[in-house]
């Protein structure tokens, strides 16, 4: 029987509003959680997949030992796709010409990710497509000139002769960081045995490439890792991505910002649920007086909440999934071969959020409602909105639980929670002070203003909660708006428009003047010439380094870098480098070296150690005078070892330089290649494009969150205004009967909300500025600069938002004829 009563009451209540506010708040919470976590996952996996193209696989295992079948078998058992790849340096002979080249040997299945583009021709603009077949070699464009060969000619490599098949146009995993590498050649794995280059002791890098589902890859990695020898290690991917850390920061920012939106939505739900309960106090008392037990009432109102929760949950999950779908579709526009993966995580995260919000914010007032004693029928319900202590506690606990759930970090969630609590306390105190100040102001004002002030004062005093939620809502909207701008600005500063996108490597001393005049002729802005001398690190202090990891793992010898390093000498510390210890070369520094931090750690090098380099057969010794941290994300030439200028000045060096070339002038590169055939041009346009794509994606996600925050803020406002609706109806009825005219009531109403909005906007501005300045200095490490726009935007936003929403909800009250209003008030 209770069910039909519950259903009937529910149905009628739908027209009253509070249930909708609760439903919409929960919907907003679920929808935003699902879409935000889904979208960040989507952007993250897009980035992973994009990065995967740069290693031609999802995962790469590097080895210095020949391929082991068991590893390939194991991968195939787990439904992973595999490919093999070897790389070594070797001489190419073509007639009288010979040249050292880096030979990449790949199996037919290469690449697993990204695209290998080969063309039949000797320039990258050739049009006829070609595929890698056994018996053929594909060359980097500059090798055609260097070797004097054409397509179809034969080239000797080791013991075999192979035919030139064409030119390499795009090699997905071509190295970017190796400035000054030898020209590249690609050949098929089936041909490598015949060359007889692979001999015990020859320096060959082996790579296993794997691709497949994230789950299978993880299982594979965890099973294989314990079986790996010292010669085998997983390739790290993160360094390749120029924005890995920026994205990580953005992800956390997205989630936390989204979380704050959810907290706002939850507040709206709590207010609406309290209001709902309060409005139903008398109905509950009546039903109880008519013989209903507390349990029956709980069933009735519990079922209302349950219906609302289920409805919101369902709609929220669907809407969230739709938003995810839309973003995945958007990513696909950027990344044609992006594979969208369906994930359950956003769905259960959304459901859990919904349950937490419903139980801890909305259920409590409903629970209290059911405990209303029957005798309440004899009392006029006090039109006062109150939250009991338990509600405050459960609400606070819920907020913290959500923060923890989202950030996944205990300390961070506690910190953020305390911060929010502090803000709320400050706002509460300020509201109290302001209400006191408003008292003398009311004297000597026009009557509409007096009424507005009086109303404001009464309601503010009754619950400064309203002012707090308004302020918090506006504060969050402002904070997010400005942080978003700051975050995007930071990324754009990392890759400013016009930053060098073409790097020139292998420039000889004599070519510098040719390049200079070429640049001058075409108005290209060249950067600094970085000298490069290639050398090998042979000893640390007096200890000789092993150049290769050997079979004998028990050897106590330290393993060296394993390849030639690009050494440079500079008198000034580069911009994107940061000294961790020691000091930079003094003017008359002699025989010193500055070492990059990661390699210093790997080689166990400390300040004061002396390093011995073999450069062109000569030994050079340098003392470590500093350890540097290098920003690998910056698109700048970076060096592991920087020597003091005195050491290398006499060695023949090549140079690195860079310039910016706009997309429509790329034809210049061909001219440059003809002019300086031995200079390698490395274009980082790809990477820059990738970074810009991701900035665009994250910007969309940020705007989306901003929108959610604004809706949540508006929702809080709506819930709050609704909470005072009945009281206002009564007042209006009385004022109308006493003869107040429409214009007077309207002015008083508008003024009340404008004042409230201005106050909330003012507080919000103050808090947002403090927060922004802190973030600016602590996180972005920018100089102190106030946000002038904020100071007018905050109050204006407050006034406009609060007034509009208040007016929108209350204007119909003003239009109800006095008699009808009177009747409505008197008859409940």
């Amino acid at each position, binding site marked *: *029987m*209770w069910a*039909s*009563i519950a259903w*009937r*009451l529910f149905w*009628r*209540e739908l027209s*009253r509003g509070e249930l909708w506010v609760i439903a919409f708040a929960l919907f907003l919470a679920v929808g935003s959680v699902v879409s935000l976590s889904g979208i960040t996952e989507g952007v993250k996996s897009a980035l992973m997949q994009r990065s995967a193209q740069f290693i031609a696989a999802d995962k790469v295992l590097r080895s210095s030992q020949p391929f082991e079948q068991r590893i390939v078998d194991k991968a195939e058992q787990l439904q992973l796709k595999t490919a093999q790849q070897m790389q070594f340096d070797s001489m190419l002979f073509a007639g009288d010409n010979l040249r050292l080249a880096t030979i990449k040997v790949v199996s037919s299945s290469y690449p697993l990710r990204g695209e290998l583009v080969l063309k039949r021709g000797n320039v990258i603009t050739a049009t006829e497509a070609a595929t890698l077949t056994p018996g053929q070699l594909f060359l980097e464009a500059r090798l055609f000139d260097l070797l004097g060969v054409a397509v179809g000619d034969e080239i000797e490599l080791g013991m075999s002769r192979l035919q030139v098949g064409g030119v390499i146009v795009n090699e997905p995993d071509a190295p970017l960081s190796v400035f000054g590498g030898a020209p590249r050649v690609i050949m098929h794995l089936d041909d490598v045995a015949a060359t007889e280059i692979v001999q015990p002791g020859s320096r060959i890098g082996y790579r296993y490439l794997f691709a497949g589902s994230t789950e299978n890859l993880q299982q594979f990695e965890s099973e294989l890792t314990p079986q790996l020898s010292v010669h085998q290690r997983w390739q790290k991917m993160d360094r390749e991505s120029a924005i890995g850390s920026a994205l990580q920061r953005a992800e956390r920012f997205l989630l936390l910002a989204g979380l704050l939106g959810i907290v706002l939505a939850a507040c709206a739900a709590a207010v609406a649920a309290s209001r709902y309960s309060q409005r139903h106090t*008398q*109905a509950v008392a*009546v*039903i*109880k*007086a*008519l*013989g*209903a*037990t*507390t*349990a*029956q009432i709980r069933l009735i109102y519990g079922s209302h909440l349950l219906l609302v929760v289920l409805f919101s949950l369902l709609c929220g999950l669907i809407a969230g999934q739709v938003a995810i779908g839309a973003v995945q579709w958007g990513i696909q526009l950027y990344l044609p071969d992006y594979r969208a993966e369906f994930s359950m995580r956003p769905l259960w995260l959304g459901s859990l959020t919904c349950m937490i919000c419903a139980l801890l914010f909305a259920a409590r007032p409903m629970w209290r409602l059911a405990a209303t*004693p*029957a*005798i309440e*029928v*004899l009392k006029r319900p006090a039109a006062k909105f109150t939250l009991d202590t338990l509600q405050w506690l459960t609400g606070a606990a819920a907020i913290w639980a959500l923060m923890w759930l989202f950030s996944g970090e205990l300390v961070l969630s506690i910190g953020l929670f305390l911060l929010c609590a502090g803000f709320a306390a400050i706002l509460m105190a300020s509201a109290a002070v302001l209400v006191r100040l408003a008292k003398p102001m009311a004297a000597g004002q026009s009557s509409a203003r007096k009424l507005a002030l009086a109303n404001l004062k009464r309601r503010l005093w009754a619950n400064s909660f309203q002012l707090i939620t308004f302020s918090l809502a506006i504060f969050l909207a402002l904070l997010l708006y400005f942080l978003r701008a700051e975050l995007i600005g930071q990324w754009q500063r990392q890759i400013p428009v016009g930053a060098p996108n073409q790097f020139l490597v292998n420039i000889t001393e004599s070519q510098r003047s040719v390049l200079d005049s070429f640049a001058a002729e075409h108005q290209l802005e060249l950067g600094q010439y970085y000298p490069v001398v290639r050398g090998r690190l042979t000893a640390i202090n007096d200890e000789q380094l092993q150049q290769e990891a050997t079979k004998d793992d028990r050897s106590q010898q330290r393993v060296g870098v394993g390849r030639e390093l690009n050494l440079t000498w500079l008198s000034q510390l580069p911009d994107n480098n940061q000294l961790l210890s020691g000091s930079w070369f003094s003017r008359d520094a002699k025989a010193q070296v500055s070492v990059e931090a990661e390699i210093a750690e790997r080689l166990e090098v400390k300040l004061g150690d002396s390093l011995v380099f073999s450069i062109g057969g000569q030994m050079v010794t340098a003392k470590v005078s500093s350890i540097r941290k290098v920003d690998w994300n910056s698109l700048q030439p970076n060096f592991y070892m920087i020597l003091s200028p005195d050491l290398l000045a006499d060695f023949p060096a090549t140079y690195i330089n860079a310039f910016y070339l706009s997309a429509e002038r790329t034809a210049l590169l061909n001219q440059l290649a003809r002019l300086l055939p031995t200079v390698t041009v490395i274009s980082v346009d790809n990477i820059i494009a990738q970074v810009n794509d991701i900035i665009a994606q994250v910007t969309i996600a940020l705007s989306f969150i901003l929108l959610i925050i604004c809706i949540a803020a508006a929702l809080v406002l709506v819930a709050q205004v609704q909470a005072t609706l009945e009281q206002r109806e009564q007042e209006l009825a009385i004022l109308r009967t006493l003869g107040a005219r429409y214009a007077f009531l309207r002015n008083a109403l508008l003024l009340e909300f404008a004042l409230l909005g201005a106050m909330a906007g003012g507080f919000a501005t103050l808090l947002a500025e403090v927060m922004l300045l802190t973030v600016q200095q602590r996180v972005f490490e920018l100089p102190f600069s106030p946000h002038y726009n904020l100071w007018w935007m905050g109050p204006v936003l407050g006034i406009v938002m609060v007034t509009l929403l208040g007016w929108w909800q209350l204007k119909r009250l003003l239009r109800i004829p006095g008699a009808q209003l009177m*009747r*409505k008030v008197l*008859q*409940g």
Partner: protein
Amino acid sequence: MNTPEVHINAVKLAKTVKLTEGSLTILHDISLTINRGETVAIVGASGSGKSTLLSLLAGLDLPSHGEVYLAGRPLHTLSEDERAAVRAADVGFVFQSFLLLPSLTALENITLPAELAGIKDARSRGLALLEQVGLSARADFFPAQLSGGEQQRVAIARAFITRPAVLFADEPSANLDAATGQKIEDLLFTLNAEQGTTLVLVTHNNDLAQRCQRQYRMQAGRFIDSDLKGLANVG
């Protein structure tokens, strides 16, 4: 004639409410006995404590002191929910301010107690009662669409739907014009006669009080020259 069965018995009832400062005793030392099927009026000045007394007799509230028995059950020892069960089964109540649920129609308001008590033919009973109070045409109206008198009649119909053994009515004909008031009073006494319901009503109206078999007169929370007319009638 059978010896009358005691239906409601109150012994030295007192009600004290806490105020922000100190406390206020609304009822002092009230004792009364009402037999089954009797009609009793409680009269007194506004604020004398009539509604409060009614709420104690109906088990809506608990007395601060004293005992109250309804059909032999000690209401003062029962919990809120146990009293609710008693009310659902045996008690009808017409509130001074009607207290219809605004979101339910006239008919739904009437059938509500029957549904709570799990009575099967709630709807047909409700329609019959609507007919009896002359509001058949208003079945689907919401309280806000009804006049004060109509709301009052709906409230009375609601009080009768469970065929309660006792009906408490708090000023059932206040706010009504003489003719309507008369109709409502007739209705109460008719139902009392038809169903043998014990009727306890609070009123300012002397005529109405005189139609009852006995009257209790209240002043400042006490009975004064209690039951004089009732005694006179017996004598």
